[in-house]
Structures are given as C-alpha cells and as structure tokens.
C-alpha cells in the first residue's frame, strides 16, 4: 500500500503574507485619492502601508474556522440555559439591572462598531489594516447579535429588556452617554476612529468592562452573560492587538504624526473614562455578589496595565494623558456619585436602582476607606430614612448634561468632593457647559462639532421627546410620563426602586416554585 505523503503546509508567516498582500490593485480610471478620499484629511502621513502587520497573523480561512467554533460553544450554552431555567440561577434579580444597562448601553455600540470598522476598512488604502478591520467588523456584529440572543432569554421573564437595543439607545438620557461616544468617533476620520475605538476603547479600557464584569456575572450565576461575554472577549484580544499595532504604525510612519496621535490619545482616554463611569456603578453597586471594587479594577487594568503601555510608548515621544491625575482622585468617588444620581432618577429610567443595605455599605467602607464613610454613607443613610418613611426621594427636574460626555453634571471638583464641577465655554455668542477640564478641553478644540450634540435633556425641554400627537397644552399633561412613553418605558414595571418591583416579586415567587412542590 502506498504511503500518502503529507503535503507541507505553509508556515504562519508565509500564509499571512500570501493572504493579506497583493489583494488590491492600482486604480486606472480614477486617481487613488478620489477612491480613498478620507485617507489624508486628518493629516496622518503614511509612506508604506505594507509595514502594517497583524501580530496574530490571522487569515480569513482560520478566522472562519475559529469563529465558527466559538459560536457552536456559545449556542450550546444558550440552549442549556433556556432548557434549565437559567434565569433562576442568578444571585437575585437586582443583578439584572447591570445586564439591562449592558443590553441597552453596550450592545448597540457593538453594532455601531461593526459599521465603523467596515467604514474604516473601506477607507484605508492599505491591505493589512483592511483585512484586520473586516474581521473586526464581522466580530462586532456577532457581538451585538449574540448579546441580544443571550439576553432575550431574560426578556421572557423580566421587565425592561424589551426595547433597549432598538428604541432606547436613541432616546434615553443616560444612554446618550455611550451613544455619543461612538457617534463622536464614527463622525471623525478613519485614523481618529482607530485611536478612539481600536486603541483607547479596546486596548486601554475594554478590560475594565469585560473582564471584571464577566467574572462578576460568573460570580452571580449568570451563565448566559458569562458565555457571550467571554466569547466576545476572545475577539477583543485580537482587537486590542489591532489597536496597539495601529498606534505603533502611525508613530513609526512619520514623526509629524506624533502631535496628532497624542491629541487623540488625550481626548479619547478621557472620553472613554467618562463612559466607563457607568461600569463603575455595576462593579460597586449592581452586582449582588461582588468580585472587586471599581477602584481595584481601575488600579489593575488601568494604572498597572496602562502604565506598562505608556512606558512602552514613551520611546515614540507619547506622554501619559494629562487627565490621569484627575482619574487618580476620581477613582475614589465616581461610582458613588453616579449611583446616587441614578438612585434619585430611576423614576425616569428603564432599570431598577436601590439603596445599598447595611452589609453592602460596610463593604463599600472597607473598599473606599478614604471617601465612603466621609462623603457618601451619610447621603445613603438620609435617603434610606426618607424611604423608610414612605418618601423615597426622586429628583423631579432633569439634570443639566455635559455638552461633550453627556453625563449629568454630577461629578465634583478635583480638589473638593463637596462641590459640583462646572466649566463654561463661549462659542458664537452662546454658552456651553461641560463637566470637567477634560471635557472642556475637548469642546474648545472642536466647538463646531460639539455644539451639534443631541442632548436628551435639552430636547425634552424643547418638546421633541413625546409620542406623535401629544398635546402639551392638554389638561393634566405630564411631561415625564409622556417622555417615558416615547422611550417605550412602562414606569410601573421597568423603572423605580427594586424594592416592590415586579422583578423582585416574580423572582421570589418563581425561585420558590422551583424548590417546592406547592
């Protein structure tokens, strides 16, 4: 019998070279700059696109193979989840507020990232980044889909999951924070997009979102989220590498690129950190069983990991963004300040909030010895006292929003945690307000862009956020109720305090039914 000779396969480096180079062509009947009109206006100079190399050396054939395997694993778990009452396995239904925030605030961003990377792939004249952007674009739409599929199992049982990824991202005041981040990036050029999303978000910040949070989901018994989270995160390692490669590439191509790249790093580090303040409340307040505090996560994933990165980038002349000094102060405060605001506005939200109980406040004191007892415990105590008297406090006016990050003006001065920080700029005779030196700096650099921001609170007050046919002059007109209706929120079920909510009652009843025969 003949022995079958094994054909020698191409090595990884050769295969990558064959399958990512020479795939494009020289244009003949249109000049190249008309085919790639966005490649130059940002001022980034590129001399040799072939210097771009994906360190994973991933080619499309391997990409399909491994992605298919990830999908099979994921959907097997989702079937098991649905077949085994996975929705009752979580620690308690308060946990679902974190998941609702994820579905409404993060999943739609995955979809925009899909579009943005498709556009970046189209707009870069180099083949290497185009292949990498194509893969990332497909990854991102996969993330949006798998997140929506995974969480749709909760939608069968709990409130607040019904319109997040469709209607609410465009309408709800707190969701305009993540939305504006991606709108800002997508409306920039392709190179700035890569710094904003590829570098700042994926490399510097995504670990803070996915790693401790998914580990938290595991700790809280949420099999569905852990699975889609880790499945998505397995792609993120590749995205992070793309972001880092991209920044090295720009800096190595031409020394003139340095000041442009530095400006974008400064801007997008701050934009990203502001968006992540939502994640700080997940870690410190929303997970019934906690993995680590926001401050600890920040120290591991930003200070240590980001520090190593900036040490490395120093050889190109990149400096640590100036905003880091403020972040070192903020890490002790931001989750508490934001959660207090959410607690007092959850009558205008699509998820539940609650006041931390005694044991949770002790955990917070231990994790935040410098700030929690001094500044925040007394405020929670006061809110608890009111709630116990049946006067749960909700703020009945809408907060002013920052023109750049769109977070309500709730964060404090860097040197005084008892004083709200306001900054003001003037442009074309109008005043604009920002929440911090970081956001003011971004506004002042491109005021023409940020004066166009769609700020939900302004729009509500202008009367643009009611269902069609609403008559604001009618007797008994309730603007908040009409706004919530327009956001597809049924306040009696979706918002307000967790205490007394239908999620709380249903979870208790069903879990009881799962362990007893009556």
């Amino acid at each position, binding site marked *: 019998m003949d022995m079958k000779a094994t054909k020698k396969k191409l*090595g*990884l*480096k050769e295969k990558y070279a064959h399958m990512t180079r020479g795939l494009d062509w020289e244009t003949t009947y249109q000049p190249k700059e008309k085919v790639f009109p966005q490649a130059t206006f940002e001022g980034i100079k590129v001399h040799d696109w072939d210097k771009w190399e994906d*360190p*994973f*050396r*991933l080619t499309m054939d*391997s990409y399909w193979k*491994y992605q298919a*395997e*990830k999908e099979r*694993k994921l959907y097997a778990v989702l079937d098991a989840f649905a077949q085994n009452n996975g929705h009752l396995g979580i620690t308690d239904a308060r946990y679902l507020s974190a998941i609702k925030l994820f579905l409404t605030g993060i999943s739609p961003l995955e979809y925009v990232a899909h579009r943005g990377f498709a556009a970046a792939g189209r707009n870069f004249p180099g083949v290497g980044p185009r292949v990498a952007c194509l893969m990332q674009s497909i990854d991102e739409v996969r993330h949006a889909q798998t997140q929506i599929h995974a969480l749709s199992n909760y939608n069968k049982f709990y409130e607040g999951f019904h319109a997040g990824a469709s209607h609410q991202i465009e309408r709800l005041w707190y969701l305009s924070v993540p939305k504006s981040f991606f709108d800002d990036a997508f409306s920039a050029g392709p190179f700035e997009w890569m710094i904003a999303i590829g570098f700042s978000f994926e490399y510097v910040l*995504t*670990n803070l979102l*996915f*790693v401790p949070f*998914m*580990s*938290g989901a*595991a*700790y809280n018994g949420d099999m569905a989220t*852990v699975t889609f989270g*880790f499945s998505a*995160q*397995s792609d*993120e*390692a*590749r995205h*992070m*590498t793309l972001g*880092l490669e991209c920044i*090295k590439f720009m800096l190595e191509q031409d020394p003139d690129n340095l000041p442009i790249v530095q400006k974008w790093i400064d801007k997008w580090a701050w934009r990203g950190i502001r968006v992540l303040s939502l994640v700080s409340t997940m870690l410190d307040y929303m997970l019934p069983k906690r*993995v680590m505090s926001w401050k600890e996560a920040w120290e591991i994933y930003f200070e*240590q*990991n980001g*520090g*190593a*990165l900036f*040490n*490395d980038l120093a*050889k190109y002349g990149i400096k640590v963004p100036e905003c880091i000094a403020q972040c070192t102060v903020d890490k002790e405060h931001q989750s508490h300040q934001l959660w207090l605001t959410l607690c007092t506005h959850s009558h205008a939200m699509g998820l539940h909030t609650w006041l931390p109980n005694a044991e949770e406040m002790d955990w917070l004191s231990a994790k935040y010895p410098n700030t929690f007892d001094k500044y925040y415990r007394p405020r929670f105590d006061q809110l608890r006292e009111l709630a116990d008297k049946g006067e749960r406090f909700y703020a009945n006016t809408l907060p002013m929003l920052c023109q750049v990050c769109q977070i309500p003006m709730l964060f404090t001065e860097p040197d005084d945690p008892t004083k709200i920080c306001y900054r003001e700029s003037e442009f074309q005779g109008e005043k604009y307000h920002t929440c911090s030196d970081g956001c003011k700096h971004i506004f002042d650099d491109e005021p023409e862009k940020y004066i166009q921001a769609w700020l939900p609170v302004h729009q509500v007050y202008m009367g643009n956020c009611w269902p069609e046919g609403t008559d604001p002059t009618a007797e008994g007109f309730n603007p908040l109720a009409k706004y919530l209706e327009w956001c597809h929120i049924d306040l009696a079920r979706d918002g307000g305090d967790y205490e007394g909510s239908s999620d709380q009652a249903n979870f208790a009843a069903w879990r009881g039914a799962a362990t007893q025969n009556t």
Partner: protein
Amino acid sequence: MSTVFIAFQINEDTRPIIEAILADNPHAVLDEQPAMVKINAEDTLVIKRESVEELIGRKFDLQELQVNLITISGHLDEDDDTFTLSWKN
C-alpha cells in the same frame, strides 16, 4: 520592568495550556478568578506549541488559543512554534 499578562476561560481545553505556560515560564504568577485565570509575568511570557502538544498528546495549532482567550497585555509575536508577549519592542 513592566508586566505582561494573558487570561483564559477555565475549561478542559485551557487546563493543559495553563500548565504548559507555568512550566515554561517559571517567573509567571497565576491569578485565579471566577471562571477565568490570569497569568502575569514580568516583561515577557512565552507559550510553546511543543509543550502544549506534549500535554495533550495531539497536534496543536497556536491559533486554537483564540477560542478561549480573554485578554492579553504587551506586544504579541506569533509564529508556528511560539506565542510571545513582551514589552521588549
């Protein structure tokens, strides 16, 4: 000196990979967290195809790592035999 790291889901696929990494990188430190492990190492960390193959008793393609990978830090260099993270650029 800066730290590089790599994190994996905990499952039967990654158990031998983690074992191989710890054997090949005596300076690496294992950090176990719910559902995942993070391996930290000063400056550099290498995953060797041969070491993983030895433990699993079959051919292993380093790109299979991607299925269970959670995150990395440091510059990556991957070829057929090694997957290296480092801050020595």
